[in-house]
């Protein structure tokens, strides 16, 4: 990446009076306006509730989900609190407990995400050392009529599936 | 070719029997001993230039002086825990001439002023410690040892139980105290070892066994053998691909190749020599071209980047895979590390595991780097010299035979 020296603008009189620049900008916007007015078919707007977006990728940060282990479909989370630590909104509540089935030592007894407080920054996914929390559910709208509806608990988070096919097996 | 000082009686049948031993001049030095004061004895040893024959090659007289000067009940501990692969000379003394050892112990005890002596025999030498025990019992009966004797020396045979590290003197003393054989931290100033807090002299069997000759014949007689820096003889052991493996006593300063040719009968089946490990498994390997130059003394081998160690040579012919050889040695080191300090505990096992990849020919260049870097990490950062020894072995193999390791890299 080389360095490009850009000359400072506003030196000539034409530039100093701004009006030519303003008018050329206005010309540009007007062209868009008239083009779109005479033929609206090129506008890529989606009619949302009827037409759903089809290009949501796993990188899209939707509602969180908790993944399952490949071996036995049990919860992958070990309640390390990394997500809760990284969370800038402090919207994750975890209560850890001893894991009795011998797969691991620790698991969350309670794992709640308050989606009303969540800012969907994705830090929890970055922080997770076990790939136990993901935001690849593709769910971009969360609906509820009570505050409690937005607090997703462990069971709910485990039940959400990922959108990409290869990870489908992880989500049951 | 052989110079028999210590091994004089080895060929005599039943030399372990007191009668036979007495006939063959054992305990002859005890008369001379009565004429010498302890300090004179130590000076004598100093003059003779006797060096510790357990591998380090430190002047014995200095150690004696230290133990002698320190206040307290003194102990003599004889290190018969020879576990070095390729080394089996002490076993010859124990089995074939135990009375030489007892005689040496009496002399040494006299010199440092000790009455109690322990012989720490490695656990595997069950047979030989039994022979030794019998000899000691005989000596007690004949009042050579014990309260009734002139020098009132008590000897106890203490059996180890299979730990190479107990050959290290501080670990040996720990073991003798009834603990796990963990080496102790090194002292900051010259001082003797301590057994239950009392000053203790720890010497190798062969060192002690050399003492009667010096006492009997004087320092100059001993100095007549060997080189200036390394006077006397050493029981050189030979194993591996030689026609006649065994223990042969020889003067210091003999040519190594000459020695192998003449006493060992050359490389087995007339094959070409590839390398020799000169002094037990903990010394860096010497490739053939260096073997032809090497002389059997401490200084010469040090200059060649190896060490004389205990003088137990392992000869390898042209068919030997050096990777396998190193793996074998590192397996030994991993197995025998006491696990006290980190570099040794983790380093040996890591190298051993990495060498598995070389054996399986799945190694990468990174693995070779690991060998080198771990060897660096182990060197000079541990309590005892076990890890540095392992490190020098790895370095030796990698220095001279790196091409063979490179061949194992995918």
């Amino acid at each position, binding site marked *: 990446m080389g360095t490009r020296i850009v000359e400072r603008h506003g030196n000539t009189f034409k530039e100093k009076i701004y009006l030519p620049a*303003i008018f050329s*900008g*206005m010309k540009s*916007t*007007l062209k868009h306006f008239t083009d*779109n007015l005479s033929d*609206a078919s090129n506008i890529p*707007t989606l*009619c949302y509730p009827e037409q759903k977006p089809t290009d949501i990728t796993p990188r899209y940060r939707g509602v969180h989900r908790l993944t399952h282990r490949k071996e036995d479909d049990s919860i992958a989370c070990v309640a390390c609190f990394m997500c809760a630590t990284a969370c800038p909104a402090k919207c994750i509540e975890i209560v850890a407990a001893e894991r009795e089935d011998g797969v691991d030592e620790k698991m969350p007894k309670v794992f709640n995400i308050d989606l009303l407080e969540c800012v969907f920054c994705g830090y929890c996914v970055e922080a997770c050392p076990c790939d136990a929390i993901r935001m690849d559910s593709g769910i971009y709208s969360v609906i509820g009529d009570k505050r409690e509806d937005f607090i997703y608990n462990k069971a709910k988070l485990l039940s959400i599936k990922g959108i990409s096919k290869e990870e489908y097996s992880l989500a049951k | 070719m052989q110079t028999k000082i210590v091994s004089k009686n080895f060929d005599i049948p039943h030399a372990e029997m007191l009668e036979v031993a007495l006939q063959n001049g054992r305990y002859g030095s005890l008369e001379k001993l009565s004429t010498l004061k302890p300090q004179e004895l130590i000076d004598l040893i100093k003059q003779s230039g006797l060096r510790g024959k357990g591998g380090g090659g430190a002047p014995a007289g200095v150690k004696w002086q230290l133990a002698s000067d320190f206040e307290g009940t003194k102990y003599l501990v004889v290190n018969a825990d020879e576990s070095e692969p390729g080394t089996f000379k002490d076993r010859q003394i124990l089995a074939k001439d135990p009375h030489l050892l007892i005689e040496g112990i009496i002399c040494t005890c006299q010199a440092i002023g000790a009455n109690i002596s322990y012989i720490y025999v490695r656990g595997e030498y069950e047979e030989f410690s039994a022979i030794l025990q019998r000899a000691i019992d005989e000596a007690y009966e004949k009042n050579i040892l014990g309260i009734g004797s002139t020098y009132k020396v008590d000897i106890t045979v203490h059996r180890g139980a299979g730990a190479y590290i107990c050959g290290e003197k501080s670990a040996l003393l720990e073991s003798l105290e009834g603990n796990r054989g963990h080496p102790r931290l090194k002292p900051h100033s010259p001082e003797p070892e301590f057994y239950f807090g009392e000053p203790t002299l720890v010497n190798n069997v062969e060192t002690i066994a050399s003492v009667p000759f010096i006492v009997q014949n004087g320092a100059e007689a001993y100095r007549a053998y060997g080189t200036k820096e390394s006077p006397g003889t050493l029981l050189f052991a030979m194993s591996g691909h030689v026609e006649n493996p065994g223990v042969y006593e020889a003067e210091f300063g003999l040519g190594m190749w000459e020695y192998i040719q003449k006493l060992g009968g050359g490389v087995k089946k007339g094959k070409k020599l590839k390398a020799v490990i000169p002094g037990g498994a903990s010394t860096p390997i010497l490739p053939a071209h260096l073997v032809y130059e090497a002389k059997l003394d401490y200084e010469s081998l040090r200059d060649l980047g190896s060490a004389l160690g205990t003088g137990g040579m392992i000869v390898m012919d042209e068919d030997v895979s050096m990777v396998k050889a190193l793996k074998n040695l590192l397996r030994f080191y991993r197995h025998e590390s006491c696990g006290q300090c980190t570099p040794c505990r983790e380093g040996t096992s890591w190298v051993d595991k990495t060498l598995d990849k070389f054996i399986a020919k799945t190694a990468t260049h990174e693995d070779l780097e690991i060998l080198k870097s771990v060897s660096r990490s182990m060197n000079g950062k541990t309590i005892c010299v076990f890890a540095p020894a392992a490190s020098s072995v790895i370095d030796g193999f990698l220095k001279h035979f790196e091409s063979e390791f490179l061949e194992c890299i995918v």
Partner: protein
Amino acid sequence: MNTVLILLPLVLTILYSLATVPILVWMERRIAGLIQDRLGPNRCHIKGVRLGGIIQSIADMMKLVFKEEFLPSHIKNKFYYLVAPSIAFMSAFLTFMVIPYADTITLGEQTYSMQALPTDLGVLWFLAFAGLGVYGIILGGWASHNKYAILGAMRATAQVIGYEVAMGLSLVSMLITYGTISLNEMVSYQTQSFFIIPAWGIFIQPIATIIFIVTAFAETNRTPFDAAEGESEIVAGYHTEYGAMKFGLFFVAEYIAMAASGALIVTLFLGGYQLPYLNTADLVNNFELLLWGIIIFALVTSVLFLKWMQKHNIFAMSGINETKLYTTLIIGFTVFAVILMSYYALANSSQSAKEIGVMLLQFAIFTVKLFFLHFVFIWVRWTLPRFRYDQTQKLGWNILLPLSLVNIFITAVVVVAGVNYGN
């Protein structure tokens, strides 16, 4: 009858200014959408009728009106807090009152001015009440007890005070040119023409026009001079703490102020309600010819519009078939209008009818010009970025003020020279 005719302009003005707001909001959204390659709001509907998205504006208005009124608890000066939006609204509303949207008509003996407030003060009235509008902002910002609000209010105040000077001075040069302060007289002045160029303010006083338009943008707090509500820095400026209809009043006031400014610009610089070259008397005298012209124009326009509508009205909603409905309506309305106008064109109508007909035509012309101005306002908004606050002040005091002074000087010299040495 008399009272009705006097009150008619008033009522019309109120309706006019209020009815423009939802349309302006709709225009703002749709034009913004089209400029940015989007569609803009087009889904809100009543039984499938969307009117191109205007229903959305109506829905928003309904929402603002019916939303729960609440007072943030931290507000101490409840009276000022509540009175601020109404001040803003009222002053914006009052400025609109003096705009003439048609020539004075004479029905029988009586003449009727087509202004809500038939005053000769004209421009001065506008200045006076445009200046009062700032109190709404000051009070709103101050009473909100919120640092963003007060910052916005201070910015707005400083801006309005600063630009009012330049605006007044640019008006002075127009007054010198027109030789009157009455808006009606100004409009009639602009029916003249020099050679083929109509004597519109924009052609005879371009500098004053630019200054006025710029200051009008600033006075109404429109982009690029909307630092007062710069949402990237100070949330929403002075109305941060307002909600529901209190906010609605501010919102409406802003659009009415914009409409008033636009109307004044039309009146001062774009020939007002007049067509170029044609004064009212000409129009009244050639009324039939005019009607035929309009009939042809109406037919052409409706056919073009119909085609365009049918091409673009593609997202079908449940309920009524919209395209069909619109087609029917457009055809029906055109046919009705054409028949009506043909009747008047064929029948020899009375003088009063002609006067009223011309009045309606002028009203339509005024509306078209005004909406063009609105389009410019919106167009500028979605083109230019916001000025930084110091740039705004610098522009106002360092450039526009001296420029307008110079303009006055030149104008005065030219006018005096014209009076003394011309002819």
